[in-house]
């Protein structure tokens, strides 16, 4: 057992050498690292947000509203289809179950059903009597939500990119969630502000016949709605709400650019339409001179300027009581486009750069001290063999670093704790082996025999013991989130690499010692 074939010894040394080479970039300053394209390893361990500072946000897309909106549109097309066939009908409140329309005359119901049956592919018709409900089947529904999600991810990416931080990560999670990670962000409230808004902007004409207050008392004219005003200037003038036409004059989808700028010394937001939007905008402003145009953002009127002259260039400005920051954010949101559905922030974890740095330093001190304690104790307890175990222990740490760098696994604060814990536990294998050797010596075996037996009989115990810890680590990895995953990763990697270093490396070291010195005394 103590005899190592040449290639086996070479293999052990090769693994160690690879470990050193791949761990090395972590000890070099960033600017002397080889470039990505070079053959030399250049990857450093990936620090988690808790160590490098940054924000983690978990967002949920309100997919219900996507579905509801889609059924609204479907109900509209059903109604226009029925209108063409001169079937009188009335709409129902949009639900999640489907687009619902009630036919007024019972005798029309059959004909209406015929017309609506294949109004769109992938729909199913139900409903009794005069009620017709059309809903999407599972495939169409899944696709609908899927598309809303990927659009949302895209918009979130554009918005986050505008913040100008490096390496933000935006990932979809499950059916309706998005995880946003922005390293090195100083002010999470900015991120919150730009992710918390849908930024759906549309232009509507303000209804000229009635004021919102009149409409409240005497009923809404057909095709209008009342929206609250978000403009501080309006509030000062006593205007709380606007009565506006439902019809969208120009939609925010037609915007191609938007920038914060100044007008008469006040921050405003300029915008520019694409050709189609610009044409429509010119058309409306020519026809409706004298009326007011409401700029509606997420269901609130942010300003409602009077149209004084036709605006033909396809661009304009939004005035309002903006601060510079608000104007910046609004322009950013308009540039990045609207989300297909509102989003909610379910979870947020932000760490400032100072704390991250402190944690790294604290972790380093703890790791080094833990290492020193354990190294010293092993030498005190096992003498020469203790030194071998310590060499293996250092090698194990190097291997953990190397594996983490290669896999680009994320190191978190609990991850550092995992490494420190591994330092304590990695020597366990050696403790098991050495204790066994001591026993075998007491039982009167020769040195070589005892060492041999020590390694052999400790083997199954080491396996059993490590597999159980590995189970806990794997479960933690699959259920844990962020930082805890980092703990599971270092623990798992540490256990696996420690099996190599504590068993093979120490064995090689002892074999070489025995071969060179041929000791006839074993101090253990």
């Amino acid at each position, binding site marked *: 057992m103590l005899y190592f074939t040449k290639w086996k010894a070479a293999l052990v040394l090769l693994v160690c050498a690879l470990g050193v080479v791949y761990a090395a970039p972590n000890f070099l300053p960033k600017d002397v690292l080889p470039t990505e394209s070079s053959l030399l390893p250049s990857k450093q361990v990936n620090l988690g947000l808790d160590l490098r500072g940054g924000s983690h946000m978990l967002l949920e897309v309100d997919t219900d509203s996507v579905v509801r909106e889609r059924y609204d549109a479907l109900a509209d097309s059903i109604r226009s289809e029925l209108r063409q066939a001169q079937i009188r009908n009335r709409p129902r409140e949009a639900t999640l179950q489907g687009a619902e329309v009630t036919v007024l005359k019972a005798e029309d119901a059959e004909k209406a059903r015929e017309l609506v049956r294949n109004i769109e592919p992938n729909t199913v018709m139900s409903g009794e009597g005069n009620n017709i409900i059309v809903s999407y089947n599972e495939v169409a529904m899944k696709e609908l939500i899927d598309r809303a999600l990927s659009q949302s991810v895209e918009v979130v990416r554009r918005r986050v990119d505008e913040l100008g931080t490096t390496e933000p990560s935006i990932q979809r999670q499950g059916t309706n969630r998005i995880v946003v990670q922005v390293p090195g962000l100083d002010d999470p409230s900015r991120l*919150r502000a730009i992710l*918390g808004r849908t930024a759906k902007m549309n232009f509507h004409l303000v209804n000229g016949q009635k004021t919102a207050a009149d409409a409240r008392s005497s009923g809404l004219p057909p095709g209008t709605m009342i929206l609250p005003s978000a403009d501080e200037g309006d509030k000062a003038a006593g205007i709380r709400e606007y009565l506006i036409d439902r019809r969208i004059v120009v939609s925010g989808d037609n915007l191609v650019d938007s920038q914060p700028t100044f007008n008469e010394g006040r921050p405003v937001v300029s915008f520019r339409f694409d050709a189609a939007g610009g044409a429509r905008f010119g058309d409306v402003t020519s026809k409706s001179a004298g009326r007011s145009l409401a700029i509606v953002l997420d269901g609130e009127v942010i300003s409602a300027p009077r149209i004084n002259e036709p605006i033909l260039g396809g661009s304009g400005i939004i005035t309002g009581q903006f601060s510079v920051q608000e104007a910046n954010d609004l322009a950013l949101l308009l540039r990045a486009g609207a989300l297909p559905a509102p989003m*909610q*922030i*379910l*979870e*947020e*974890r*932000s*760490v*400032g750069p*100072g*704390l991250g740095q402190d*944690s790294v330093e*604290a*972790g380093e001190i*703890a*790791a080094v001290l*833990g*290492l020193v*304690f*354990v190294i010293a*104790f*092993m030498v*005190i*307890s096992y*003498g020469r063999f203790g030194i071998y175990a310590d060499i293996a222990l250092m090698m194990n740490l190097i291997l953990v670093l190397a594996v983490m760098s290669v896999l680009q696994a994320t190191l978190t604060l*609990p991850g550092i*704790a995992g490494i*420190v*814990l591994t330092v304590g*536990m990695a*020597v*366990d294998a050696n*403790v*098991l082996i050495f*204790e066994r050797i*001591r026993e075998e010596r*007491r039982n009167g075996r020769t040195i070589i025999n005892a060492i041999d037996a020590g390694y*052999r009989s400790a083997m*199954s*115990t080491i396996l059993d*013991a*490590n*597999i*159980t*810890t*590995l*189970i806990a*680590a794997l*479960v*933690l990895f699959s*259920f*844990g*989130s962020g930082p*805890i995953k980092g*703990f*599971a990763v270092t623990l798992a990697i540490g256990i696996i690499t420690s099996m190599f270093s504590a068993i093979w490396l120490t064995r090689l070291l002892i074999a070489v010692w025995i071969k060179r010195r041929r000791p006839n005394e074993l*101090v*253990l």
Partner: protein
Amino acid sequence: MKPLHLIPDDVNVPFLKFRKIFYIVSLVMVLASVGLFFTKGLNFGIDFRGGILVEIKTDGPANIGALRDNLGSLGLGDVSIQEFGEPDDVLIQLQRQDGDEKAQMTALAQVTDALGDSVTIRRSELVGPKVGDELKEAGIYSVVISLLLIMVYIWFRFEWQFAVASVIALLHDVLITIGFFVITGVQFDLATLAAILTVAGYSINDTVVVFDRIREYLRKFRKMELTDLLDLSINSTLSRTTMTSFTTLLALIALFAFGGEAIRGFTMALIFGIVVGTYSSICVASPLLVVLRLKRKIPEGEEGQEANA
């Protein structure tokens, strides 16, 4: 220089003689833990409760009283404010706000506004009701699943008495560690949960080493009384058990003292759990084999295979 032997080579403690005492001690601790868990309850952190946490650094020593007045006047329910490691480091925690996720967001904005620019926000965390519930669920699942998997593995490797004894020891350690959290009131969050699972892994690891030895001796000393054999097994592995616990504790103590305030609870759980785990693998798991009437018979195949190991 003669290496230090933490445990003398000829150690021979009659552990089994005291097993009744160990049972009583353990039973009392377990029952107390469970009882306290249901009466006093754990001090759950925002990970599981939902809520808001903000860590700030003040200019010079923090005036906790003023902060309390300032934030208390916002009407956001219970606000816990405590010093965090250093006099100028303060941890602010708010309970989960009534209403949905948006309410949490608004509360966080109110807190950061009220704190103003004179303090540096080192860390802010917000866990909405939905995620809090999910994390709780995932936490329970992870504990149950890892315990089950470990049990299956042990059952696969050993006879059933060993599996049952090791799982009892494992539950013993986990429950008492939880009891420790109830008594000390140290916050229980995702990190402490991870620590408890690690304790589970460690505890079973420790137990397995002793059980491996018992199995070996069962084959070797066929005539020996079971209690003597168990004592012998425990004593021959005693040096290893204490050595490993000791090195692990050394590393953990370094982490506890210097690893920073943020992982102190986590390290505390590990330290306590490892002490309990070491006790249980020596004093609880092996003696339980007597109670479970471990049979001396060993299947033929296995004997031939491992007798020369």
